[in-house]
């Protein structure tokens, strides 16, 4: 890994910390407020690619683990890993990696704008929602003893909010891709 990659990874981890400091937005039709930080996984994969995106999240999770309040709302420390949503936090790096893989495969500079939007949205939905829940929900079911089916059904409440996040991440990622492309191409 060259120094530029190392710096990109560190800067993106720092961006994710700052996204946690931005006040969350509330929308009328969704019960939970949307924090900008929760879009970080999708943004990381779509903007700096699979490998660097995953490393940025490993670094971010390390920051949380060693006791920095880097999560939105000033949360942090080992307690969040011991809690019910620990699996989601540990799943971020994998989710960012898968998001990046799909974005690298489907988004190329020569594509039409519409195709790039579709590529980023697919990557965000599969990596940032499907993969993340596939890790986080079974973990939650194991730790809290909630039956898996009930835990999975309960998580459906968050899906509309997550799709909205994927849409915002898609627009932002495409804006960055047009202005300062960093996503490696993969055939």
């Amino acid at each position, binding site marked *: 890994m060259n120094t530029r990659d190392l710096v990109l990874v560190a*800067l993106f981890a720092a961006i994710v910390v700052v996204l946690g400091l931005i006040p969350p937005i509330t929308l009328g039709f969704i019960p939970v407020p949307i924090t900008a930080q929760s879009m970080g996984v999708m943004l990381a994969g779509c903007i700096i690619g699979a490998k660097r995106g995953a490393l940025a999240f490993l*670094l971010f999770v390390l920051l949380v*683990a060693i006791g920095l309040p880097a999560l939105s709302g000033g949360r942090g420390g080992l307690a969040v890993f011991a809690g019910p949503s620990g699996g989601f936090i540990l799943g971020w790096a994998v989710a960012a990696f898968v998001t990046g893989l799909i974005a690298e495969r489907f988004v190329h500079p020569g594509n039409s704008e519409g195709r790039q939007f579709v590529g980023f949205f697919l990557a965000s939905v599969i990596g940032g929602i499907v993969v993340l829940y596939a890790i986080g929900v079974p973990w939650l079911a194991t730790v809290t003893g909630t039956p898996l089916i009930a835990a999975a059904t309960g998580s459906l409440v968050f899906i509309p909010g997550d799709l909205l996040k994927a849409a915002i991440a898609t627009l932002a990622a495409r804006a960055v891709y047009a202005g*300062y492309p960093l996503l490696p191409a993969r055939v």
Partner: protein
Amino acid sequence: MLTSLYVEGGSWFHRVAVRAKLIALLVLSLGLFVTNSPLLLLPAFLLCGGLYLSLGLTPRQALSRVGFVVFTILVLAAVNLFLIPVPEVVALVLRLMALVLFAAAVTATATIGAFMDEVTILLKPLERLGLLRAADVSLALGLVLRFVPDIFARYEAISEAHRARGLPIRPLTIIGPLIILTLKDADTIAAAIDARGFRRQ
């Protein structure tokens, strides 16, 4: 802006080595999942809670640090009451609470430096395999701490620019410029690191 969750203090738990505390946390998290008996889980919960409260945090600070996780545990417990037998729910809540409180106690009594020493040791095997360099991890960590205030200042400048133009402050119009402006610095920062020979390449 990003101050550590460590609290100054001289309790006996502060003096225990970080490695011992991390191993204890690991043993506890595996051990508590083996038993379902409230006779073991209740004392574990009370001991962990007592330990956490004896570290010199004010009750308010103590609550704000674990409040969110405790809230999630209680919500899920309320859901569980409809799905699984009550004694099991009680065991699950006691176990998770004990773990969360012990983990919070470890975080409150270990400095970032002490944690990083342990992380460096854990990374040694990976370093031997040539997968990464422990020094790079420390460097990246330092860069994050160095640039968070800068990036936050940039966020405020962009919101300010929105306000000056009478535009609503939306994440969509802020994230794009924030990321481009930040990542554009990568080349300069990388050149500065290499010029100083920090990575000995």
